[in-house]
């Protein structure tokens, strides 16, 4: 079994969210922030989610305040922001660190599987994305600049596999 399914991050209420429930799903994991230039990507992420959720796509947002302190709110505030401003329906988890001594194990795993630009493992900024296939294998890593809509075809292909 992929190590991915052994991970159990916390949801915004602080309750366990075992990744074992994601077996057989295509998963897009994004480190999000509410006050970032890339925040409007929520809209495209939600569109992808609505389009493919019933076909087996799960999008998971991990709020993170490490980049420009652009996610300063509480978990509750972040959840409200996403819902009110972008109508987000996909799960937004508890705020975490994605780099450094206190990085969440989810990101420890994802980064170890796919490096970013120049081979750096560290997350560079908000809204980097990891696409995980139905077997729990990290298929691709996308930079913040990559629009969620541009991953549409790849997601569709992975869902068909």
């Amino acid at each position, binding site marked *: 079994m992929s190590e991915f399914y052994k991970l159990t991050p916390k949801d915004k209420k602080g309750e366990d969210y075992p990744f074992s429930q994601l077996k057989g799903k295509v998963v897009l994991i994004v480190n999000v922030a509410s006050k970032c230039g890339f925040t409007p990507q929520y809209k495209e992420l939600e569109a992808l989610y609505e389009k493919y959720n019933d076909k087996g796509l799960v999008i998971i947002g991990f709020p993170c305040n490490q*980049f420009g*302190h652009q996610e300063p709110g509480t978990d509750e505030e972040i959840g409200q922001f996403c819902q009110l401003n972008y109508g987000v329906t996909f799960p937004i988890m508890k705020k975490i660190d994605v*780099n450094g*001594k206190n990085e969440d194990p989810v990101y420890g795993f994802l980064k170890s599987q796919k490096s970013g*630009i*120049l081979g*750096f*493992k*560290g*997350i560079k900024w908000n809204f980097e994305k990891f696409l995980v296939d139905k077997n729990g294998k990290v298929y691709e890593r996308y930079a913040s600049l990559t629009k969620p809509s541009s991953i549409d075809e790849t997601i569709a292909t992975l869902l068909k596999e």
Partner: protein
Amino acid sequence: MANVNDIIADLVNAFDEYSDDSVSLTAILEMYIDQINMDGEIDDKEQFLTALLGLMKDHPDVVARISWDFPKEILKFLTTANVDVTKRLGYSVIISLVMKCFNEIAFSAEPKECLLTGCELLSNLSLENENIELEMEQGDHTNSKGQTHYSSAEIGKYHAERTPADFFVSVKMYILFELIGTTLQRIPTLNPSKYLGLATSAMIRFIKANCDGINDVRIVMRRIFSFCRNYVPPDTSLCVIKDRSLTKEDLIRIEERELASQRRILRNLCTIGLETCLKAINGRTDVKYFYFLSNTEFTLAGFYKDISEVNSRFFNLALSFDIDIKKEFLECVKTSHDIYKGLPKDSSIGSEEAKKLIQQTVYKLAYSYELQRIAKHKNVQLDPLGIVILSGVYYMETDKHLYPQITVKDAIYLYLRCTTPSLFSKFYENFSVESVVRYWLWVSITNHSSAVLRKELEELPSYLLTTFLQTFLSKNCKQPNEEIRMVSFTLFTRILCLIPEAVTFKFILETLTASSYPHVKSSVLGILKDLMSKRRSCQDLCANDNDEALSNSLAKLKINSKKNEGAGVESQVYVEVSEERMNEIHHLALRAINSLEEEKTTRANIILILNYLEFFNGLHSEWDKSLLQSIHDEIEDKVENCSDEDLKKQIKDANVKLYGLIQ
């Protein structure tokens, strides 16, 4: 000057006629730009630049051919005659047009040539040169019809401290960073690290030459941060297609090597950029920890808050670049230890003269090490001082210590390694680093028991401790910020409490004897009064390792007063009052009092006398009464020579008090 419409018509013709003759076209362009800049009205200049921008858009092939010259020519429009430096950038049509022209250059010019010219311009960009150019320009304005926008009455709060040179250097720096960043991505090469290295070298040369003088260093820091974060290596696929001789294995090998080189270069820029940009900024790391120890709320003022925000970005950039800050910091600590580890023990040095000679060497060890490091290093490395700053940013960001186990020995080595090179070259002076190494001293003395600290300090050669104390004192006496000075003196006193008594007294005596600065003498006299009058706690004397009790006592940030003593507990002062020591201090006090007879004695010298009186008043019960009487008589005899009436009264009052205490 010819009509601007005629010049533009000629320019249009030139773009058609000389499109294949770059030398002629460059000469014509230069001529028209100079003419417009010298004699044109602002409207003419805007019209000319608009036309030029249109031509550049229509003739990318021509832009590609004169990549060398375009940037320099267009930058000529950035002068006080054309831009109102008191207003925000968005108000200037000229700046907007110049930026648009640079955008065309960045996307159309021959990228290698363009990168080289961008790097050359950035390397030579300096406040000094800009000032000279602006002075020359102002001289020219007497004959110029050019409309000068600059009006000091309009200077708003935002730009109040910015000089025109500072403004233009910042704008040009911004434009050149963008130009370099964009062209780098357009160079088709299998060796992008070569060009990235060229670009970062130019950036480092620029920041090293200017960061001390630039009014708002945050602008530079943000550019470096953006460059590092946004850098994407060029697409190598075209080169691969061209060079079919390469095997797949060759390509993989080259690509891996290139990626590693680019990573090293960016990590280097991240750390060296942080260190260099913060050179002249007084850090607040030690102050924040001091506030924590004193249970006082710590807040940063506006400018420092912004600096802290940019530092946070660099800190997270370092994490993005997979820099293991703790591992690298421990390496710095180890290197600092290695620099001083070979010094002989006191017992193996034959004479005081030999000890003094070795002490002189101690001052220079870190400086020599730095010179050797620069000479020997072959690879692009992380900047050690940048790592030290990041270790402090870690605390600012997380409220946790990166390495709470640091020993006082290592903290002293680190302090000496980071501060003593600046005694030989201003190039190594860095106020932010100084704040962080002071913070590490605080961490070391608040995370170990007094017994451990004393033992560690006893193991250090006395001359090394003296070097440390002298460096610390001299740095702190020059510190203009009162809060930092106060916090540092508290730290200094605490360390003196832990150092072997004989070393502490000798150091204070030497300072009172030989320092050229009366205010330094006054400072150490105040410290000596505390050390001779206040008593160590029982815990301290019993070498108790009770960390909680220790933390509590350190959190009070005061060495124990008599009031805090336990009843019936034998305790001793930090520096004992002996007959010999009384005589030595007495002799120095008389020397200070005699300065009243000198015509040119300074106010600081008179304040020193007042401090001696306060010292004796505070210690009267421990002191030899006949010596105190002699001090009293000597002052009574000479005080009338004091030219400062206010100080004279204070000295007289203190002397009367001393007389009362002797009786």
